[in-house]
């Protein structure tokens, strides 16, 4: 098959988004607010890692290289995930003095999951069959993730003043970077004209409509314009946090690529 750049770029953005956010989520293991949340969050991360594998496997079939190598050996500038999803969970590391921000985890995962649902619903109508099949499967599992994050989001937004203050700060932070998630990147036009996925505008409108409903339910207002201030991951722009994530992630793989997982 001739190299279809738009398709390949779309698959990288789908795979990398899930891969990086699942990695950030896995750093929370043992640190979540309570043990039930540890179980839930790690289960969600495992699902998301599975989704990433699905998309990397399609790339493998398209001749991009082995799925394991695509996830572990690519240079940061070849990643197409949104910058918001690679950002650290907070100060410190999961091994040393983690000062992670739970409000940021809730808001980032909630915003992302809502968009992921819209994106998967669009992919269900994709002209490319492997995307249609994958999206149908992903949507089923995603439904549970969305319920989970929406519950956290609404409960914390209607909780104590401190919770609201922290949530408001996290919302502002994510809002300022969310356009990086919503954008399709430089190959947008071709992705849409080939029928792979719906337009950015349509998906952004649906995402905002969903947010408006949620915010209204918790008595809050949507912040102003959505932003993308730290770079466009869809065209390979990233921050230092991605380097840190990738070097941690690939440490074992690089030591022994033959190791079983």
């Amino acid at each position, binding site marked *: 098959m001739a190299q279809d750049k738009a398709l390949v770029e779309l698959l990288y953005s789908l795979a990398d988004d899930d891969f990086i956010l699942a990695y950030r989520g896995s750093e929370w293991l043992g640190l979540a607010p309570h043990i039930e949340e540890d*179980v839930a969050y790690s289960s969600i991360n495992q699902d998301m890692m599975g989704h990433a594998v699905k998309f990397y496997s399609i790339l493998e079939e398209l001749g991009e290289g082995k799925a394991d190598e695509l996830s572990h050996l690519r240079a940061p500038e070849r990643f197409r995930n949104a910058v918001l999803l690679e950002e650290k969970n907070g100060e410190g590391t999961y091994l040393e003095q983690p000062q992670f921000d739970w409000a940021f985890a809730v808001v980032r995962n909630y915003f992302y999951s809502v968009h992921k649902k819209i994106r998967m619903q669009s992919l269900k109508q994709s002209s490319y069959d492997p995307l249609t*099949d994958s999206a149908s499967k992903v949507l089923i599992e995603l439904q549970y993730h969305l319920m989970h994050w929406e519950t956290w989001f609404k409960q914390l937004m209607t909780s104590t003043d401190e919770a609201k203050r922290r949530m408001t700060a996290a919302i502002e932070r994510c809002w300022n970077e969310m356009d990086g998630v919503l954008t399709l990147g430089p190959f947008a036009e071709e992705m849409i004209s080939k029928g792979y996925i719906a337009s950015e505008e349509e998906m952004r409108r649906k995402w905002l409509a969903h947010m408006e409903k949620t915010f209204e339910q918790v008595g809050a207002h949507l912040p102003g314009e959505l932003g993308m201030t730290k770079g466009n991951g869809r065209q390979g722009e990233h921050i230092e946090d991605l380097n840190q994530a990738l070097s941690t992630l690939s440490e074992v793989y690089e030591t022994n690529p033959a190791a079983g997982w």
Partner: protein
Amino acid sequence: MTGIESKQMADTIYDVLQGVKDPEIDSVSILDLGMVEGVEVEGPLAKVGVLPTFTGCPALGIIQRDIVNAIIEVEGISEVEVNFLSKPIWTTDRITDQGKEQLKEFGISPPPANHTPGEPWEIPCPYCGSVYTTMENLFGPTACRCILYCRSCKNPFEAMKPVANIGDDE
């Protein structure tokens, strides 16, 4: 091999697959879980189509290995191919009645038969049958399970998450 012989061979393989269990719920065979989509025999080659329950299920590799190890013992088979299929999608209504009973024995409440995705579902306790139960965690020790508590017999238990193909609701 004639058509009839292949058919008999496929039946033999189904019998053997009855002994292959999900390593995370080892009372239920992958057949009763509805994970096997088809068996084909071409001479000494057996091909098994398998539907993953959850995408990120880490048990898939083990299931694949167990299928190969089980079928390779069948006389006349020297090669086994396991294919994970993305279509059709595995849903909980594929679990057989026997599978549902075996899940209960394992302490896992089987998924409800007619459940609308997104709606709350009534989950009877696998020990006492009471529906006076509360959901403790939508997620459990494996991707396909959730954790509940029975207010009648005061036992914690698990249930299989309902998985149905969802429509294009907004």
